[in-house]
């Protein structure tokens, strides 16, 4: 019996393959390829934290379960319920510029890219279905249900002349198809897809640019054009169109303008009789507009005010607001079902909003709104990357899970989103003493002479698990603070902070016990003020043991004893202002490194007080590794940025990688690893204990990886391949699909029945009675079985013989534990030894037997229930 079982398992036909998942799409990497890559260990620069999510409008899936957005060369599929990225669709070789659901199959997605291709995806499984090669740069994509072509924006001749053309997508079974059949629709349009809208199920297309609105009617093949007054008088100066949206049902076009007005155009099929009404709430330009999909009764608008406005019934007085969305609304999209909205914001986030204007989920990438001035830091407590986030906030970004943890509100003032307002900015921050202290500097400068500075010192309160303000210092210096540095030595008994400023002083702040008798309190006080010949203090750095403090005053480096604050010695190279300063670590602690603006890297020996070596390198970043002697330096040249990893004691760099990025690298940081790596190759040993991250000018966070691209970039394709099987609900039967599908799809039907009938068989008392009767009293199993099968056949009323084995096997499982030489029916589950259910039983029933069985239908088998 056992042997048989194993055979049957081998022969068992797989009735349902997990569709697509086993297909060898480009996303699944073969394991051997991975292994090879690991062995080679070539170091690549990889992106962390993702690209921007707010480049184009997000697109919802038909059931609103997923939302798609373009992100660099990829398309990301997020779950609207959990904010998690479900898939990353990759295959484009350049920036993805537009996505749209396939109107004829809502499980598919079209995308277009600068690489000149349109791709069709199965987004549920994350598989590329087809590639249409168009050939020229595609700037946006639109798809309509009624036609078998899509519309794209291209610029063929001149760099700033854009055209809307339709591309006929040829039907073919091959993976890559050339789609060269372009037909011209509109010329001289705006590049942004926000300025094109298709209305009333594709009857017309509206495009706006500068001061005119043009509407092209597909049936009439005519274009009507409406121009707003753009005269030089002040009243109409800001009449420019910014975006357009079309009503889904009616002939109505909404346009947004630079002065904050929204115009609703009607009767535009006649160039004379057209009318428009104005809605005005926004005080700054309208960034995007969207009509609610189902009935089109409400219009959504958003702009720099970061308030989502819903205009009900297109009336000025019926407004609903969702304020405080945090940053400028760049795009608004509405799900096809109409239950969700999605707004994309300038700070690289998307907010999923319910129909009743309640934000339900935030998909947040690395905040990219503003300039990063604090640099990159590591919070020693959470190991999170810390940098400027939302205005006035510090963002904590988890590198392990690659997502933002939270924003810490440092300034705690309401941010007013308005152009040209001078805001308080968070300029410096530093962590000290294993994350117990956080120092932040904020400044606001309206005019040359009016500088407002504030330094805040926060302590981490373990009881409440959060930062608490300890000391606030108004105007800690009379001019800009240039650097901030904690003394992080192991043995330092009290925390020390040094600030340097352009006013020529550096201040040493220490934590003192300034308690009066009533409350035990500690606070920071200034301990020492140092200066050097009225030069501006530009940088400061503590040595590893905290005994020395190096402060650079423009071209001169001064070394101070941290015990007595005496000036020990000065170094001067006359090679330009010092831009970076750092001490060597561990065995190299006798070295001090300084990089100057003139592109010279100097290394001084602190014992001999002499210059050890210098090199000509235009340094942008100089970062010591906290776990080793290594120092990473990134230099900027005309072609790109180069990375050098070296030890101060050795003349030769450990590792050089040219061209790590085409743009300027602004900040870098070493992040200690939780689990040390074991790269055997000497060149990569510097990555063993820490990982190096750097941030470029366009605020993309990059790091180094030895993994193959497939391994790094496809998280979800390597998930457990578990099939989605959910039992059918009673509603399913009520809706009657069950009967209809019966003829069409027998395989599936059998499967469902099996699932549904399982509880039924267990609950009928007659059957349980039958099962509990001792075996020797019952007639032989084979006899009972055949009758039982027949009864089942009758109840079906069809000739589908396929279910027989399934149902019977359930019966058999309990009944015939001890029945030996087996009838033809196998068990689904057996004791101890597993045998899978063989479905090939069917074939063993001869045709004559089948006929006989059909006869049995007419016989009354009600006796079985009476048993």
């Amino acid at each position, binding site marked *: 019996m056992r042997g048989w079982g194993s055979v049957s398992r081998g022969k068992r036909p797989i009735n349902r393959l997990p569709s697509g998942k086993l297909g060898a799409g480009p996303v*699944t990497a073969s394991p051997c390829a991975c292994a090879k890559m690991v062995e080679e260990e070539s170091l690549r620069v990889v992106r962390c934290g993702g690209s921007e999510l707010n480049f184009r409008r997000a697109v919802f899936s038909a059931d609103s379960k997923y939302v798609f957005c373009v992100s660099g060369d990829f398309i990301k599929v997020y779950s609207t319920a959990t904010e998690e990225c479900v898939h990353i669709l990759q295959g484009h070789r350049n920036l993805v510029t537009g996505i749209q659901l396939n109107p004829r199959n809502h499980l598919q997605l079209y995308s277009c890219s600068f690489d000149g291709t349109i791709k069709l995806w199965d987004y549920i499984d994350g598989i590329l279905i087809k590639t249409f090669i168009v050939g020229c740069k595609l700037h946006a994509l639109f798809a309509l249900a009624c036609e078998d072509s899509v519309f794209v924006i291209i610029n063929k001749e001149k760099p700033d002349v854009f055209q809307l053309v339709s591309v006929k997508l040829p039907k073919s079974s091959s993976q890559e198809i050339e789609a060269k059949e372009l037909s011209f629709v509109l010329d001289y349009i705006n590049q942004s897809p926000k300025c094109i809208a298709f209305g009333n199920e594709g009857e017309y297309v509206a495009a706006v640019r500068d001061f005119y609105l043009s509407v092209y009617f597909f049936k009439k093949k005519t274009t009507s054009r409406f121009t707003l007054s753009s005269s030089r008088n002040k009243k109409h100066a800001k009449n420019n169109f910014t975006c357009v949206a079309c009503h889904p049902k009616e002939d109505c076009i909404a346009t947004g303008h630079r002065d904050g007005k929204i115009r609703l155009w009607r009767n535009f099929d006649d160039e004379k009789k057209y009318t428009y009404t104005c809605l005005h709430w926004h005080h700054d330009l309208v960034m995007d507009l969207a009509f609610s999909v189902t009935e089109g009764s409400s219009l959504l608008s958003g702009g720099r005010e970061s308030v989502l406005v819903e205009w009900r019934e297109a009336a000025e007085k019926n407004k609903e607001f969702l304020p405080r969305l945090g940053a400028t609304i760049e795009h608004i999209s509405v799900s096809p079902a109409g239950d969700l909205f999605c707004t994309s914001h300038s700070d690289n986030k998307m907010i999923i909003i319910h129909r009743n204007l309640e934000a339900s989920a935030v998909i947040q990438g690395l905040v990219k709104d503003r300039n990063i001035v604090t640099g990159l830091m590591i919070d020693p407590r959470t190991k999170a990357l810390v940098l400027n986030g939302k205005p006035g906030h510090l963002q904590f970004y988890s590198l392990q899970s690659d997502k933002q943890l*939270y924003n810490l509100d440092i300034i705690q003032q309401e941010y007013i989103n308005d152009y040209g307002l001078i805001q308080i900015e968070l300029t410096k921050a530093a962590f000290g003493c294993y994350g117990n202290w956080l120092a932040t500097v904020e400044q606001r400068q309206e005019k040359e002479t009016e500088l407002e500075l504030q330094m805040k010192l926060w302590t981490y309160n373990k009881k409440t698990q959060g930062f608490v303000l300890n000391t606030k210092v108004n105007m800690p210096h009379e001019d800009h603070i240039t650097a901030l540095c904690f003394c992080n030595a192991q043995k330092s008994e009290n925390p020390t902070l040094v600030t340097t400023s352009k006013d020529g002083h550096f201040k040493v702040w220490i934590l003192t016990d300034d308690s009066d008798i009533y409350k035990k309190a500690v606070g920071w006080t200034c301990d020492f003020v140092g200066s050097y010949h009225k030069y501006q203090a530009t940088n400061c750095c503590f040595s590893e043991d905290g005994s020395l403090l190096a402060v650079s005053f423009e071209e001169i480096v001064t070394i101070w004893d941290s015990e007595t604050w005496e000036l020990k010695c000065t170094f001067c190279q006359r090679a330009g202002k010092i831009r970076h300063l750092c001490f060597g670590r561990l065995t190299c602690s006798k070295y001090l490194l300084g990089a100057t603006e003139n592109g010279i890297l100097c290394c001084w020996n602190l014992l001999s007080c002499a210059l050890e070596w210098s090199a000509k390198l235009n340094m942008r970043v100089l970062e010591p590794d906290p776990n080793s002697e290594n120092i990473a330096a990134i230099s900027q040249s005309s072609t790109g940025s180069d990375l050098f990893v070296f030890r101060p004691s050795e003349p030769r760099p450990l590792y050089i990688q040219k061209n790590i990025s085409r743009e300027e690298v602004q900040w870098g940081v070493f992040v200690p690893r939780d689990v040390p790596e074991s790269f055997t190759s000497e060149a990569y040993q510097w990555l063993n204990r820490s990982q190096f991250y750097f941030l470029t000018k366009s605020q993309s966070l990059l790091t180094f990886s030895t993994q193959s691209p497939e391994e790094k970039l496809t998280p979800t394709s390597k998930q*457990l391949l*578990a099939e989605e099987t959910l039992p059918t609900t009673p509603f399913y039967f009520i809706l009657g699909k069950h009967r209809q599908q019966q003829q069409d799809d027998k395989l599936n039907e059998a499967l469902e029945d099996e699932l549904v009938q399982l509880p039924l068989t267990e609950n009928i008392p007659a059957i349980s009675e039958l099962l509990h009767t001792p075996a020797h009293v019952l007639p032989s199993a084979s006899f009972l079985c055949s009758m039982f099968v027949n009864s089942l056949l009758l109840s079906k009323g069809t000739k589908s013989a396929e279910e027989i084995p399934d149902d019977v096997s359930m019966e058999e499982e309990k009944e015939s534990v001890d029945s030996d030489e087996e009838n033809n029916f196998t068990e689904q589950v057996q004791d101890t030894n597993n045998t899978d259910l063989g479905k090939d039983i069917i074939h063993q029933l001869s045709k004559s037997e089948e006929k006989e069985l059909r006869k049995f239908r007419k016989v009354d088998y009600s006796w079985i229930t009476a048993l």
Partner: protein
Amino acid sequence: MAAGGGGVAEPFSPAGVPCAFSPQSQAYFALASTDGHLRVWETANNRLHQEYVPSAHLSGTCTCLAWAPARLQAKEGPQRKKRKSEAVGTSNQVDLLALGTAVGSILLYSTVKGELHSKLISGGHDNKVNCIQWHQDNGCLYSCSDDKHIVEWNTQTCKVKCKWKGDNSSVSSLCISPDGKMLLSAGRTIKLWVLETKEVYRHFTGHATPVSSLMFTTIRPPNESQPFDGITGLYFLSGAVHDRLLNVWQVRSENKEKNAVMSFTVTDEPVYIDLTLSENKEEPVKLAVVCRDGQVHLFEHILNGYCKKPLTSNCTIQIATPGKGKKSTPKPIPILAAGFCADKMSLLLVYGSWFQPTIERVALNSKEPHMCLVRDISICWAPKVETAVTKVRTPMMNSEAKVLVPGIPGHHAAIKPAPPQTEEIESKRKLGENEVSIEERLGALDIDTKKEKGNLPQTNSFPVLLTQGLESNDFEMLNKVLQTKNLNLIKRTVLRMPLHAVIPLLQELTKRLQGHPNSAVLMVQWLKCVLTIHASYLSTLPDLVPQLGTLYQLMESRVKTFQKLSHLHGKLILLITQVTASEKTKGPTCPAQKAKLVYEEESSEEESDDEIADKDSDDNWDEDEEEKGSEKDEDVDEEEEEEEEDAEEKGEENGEDRDVASEKELNGDSDLDPENESEEE
């Protein structure tokens, strides 16, 4: 690593709520509470990630849960390689969560999609599922139940692969061996099964009560003399309901030894267990056991053979609330779960209530045998809906924070005595002498006051009051004296005060100067008197510079903006005088006579013409101004100019009045005596 402890829930044990950390980086903590809700928390920022309520959550509550291994595709090569690639990639996203229910079904929930992925029921259990284990490699799922069976599921097809009877009683716990070829199950006895053949390989007996948790603690045997077959020599751990001992067993090659090798003792029944696998024989096994009484016990032990005595914990962690004031006593906060972080040096602690737990990362230093963490979780009670969506945290800014503004001591470095230590000692000695003498003098002063009480001359009692107030630091007494406005009185008081009280007085004055500007005005009078009268005494003091350093800094910072202020003041005076001047001319107008007396034909005509033009058209404004500019001084501001125009308009008929106004301007300027100013302020 953190897969265990899930299936603890017994009908009679309410504490064992199924919960688990997600594998690898412990980014999530899944918790199925007794109300049938499954909640997934983010460990890094303690935020509710998602909540899921199974449709049958009331009838079939969740009894155990297990995260699917976040694995890469089937992997060849040694263990080492695998670890490396996993650590680098942030890609090991975890997704599936298996939930066992009280009715015997198993749900697979996708945390990425936030919905039920599949439901395993057909041919499975018909009683409560006690434990679920994922196989790390082949995508199988093992579950055991009260129906005495163990089921092997194929998660790809969601079908039963195999079902066999695991024990004569209910099977309560499962564990898969590190190499994935063996399975431990615990019913009445602990059995080790060979997965391929489903045959029992070993029996272990020892626990009297149902075993609640099973875990392998090593992945390699301690002695590697014979070739390793994947199981022999490995240790595993078991904990049982109502048992304060955790037993460690070793799989021996000979079948004789059936008893536990050693045991760990804890204070209460273990609820959640996590450990770090030791990969070689030198590396100790670290074990964290959360007990029902809410404590965590940490063990660190190198497993190498038999040990008779139960081992006690190296470290115990407790959490308590801060006792606020005298009224409330600190209360313990139960720890619900604990998991080791990837670096094995820190522990993730979950504590508080099941509905709103707090997750914290605690660094371990094994030196202390007992750690009591004081945590205030009262803030955490209120669910933070707002932060859940915006992801903004607001750090506390309370009034207790120290504020340093320029001038307050501490904002700038205190001025220290320049000479080195020897002199400091001297000054200290001096201070000591002073104190003694003050005591003596106090006595003397008391007598003085008594004597003079009869007369009650105010001038005499003020110095006495002042010195007494300074000695005793009596706020009211000092207020009485220092708030006087009589300049003469101040002078006389300062004259008659004893010398030793000068420095304390100066310090008191400094303190008060830092306060409200209104009181500072008064203090400045005092300061002025003290400095003028006692200058000679002060100059004799050796430590004058540090003594008066703060005062100096204060004055320095206060007068820093003085220049700007005086500019402003000057301008304002200019305006005000002109306004008042124009108003004066408005009131008593008797210009007719004067106009007759002073007769200047040409000039008056010109002016009047100008003014008329000015009123008539705005267009000619520019020209007009130019003319004005030529007429008036160049260095006055626009505002002033306008004001002056107003003045002119009103006083146009009278040439002399204008002259008066300009004279007053001059006066206004000359009024700006800096010293006066400071006193006024």
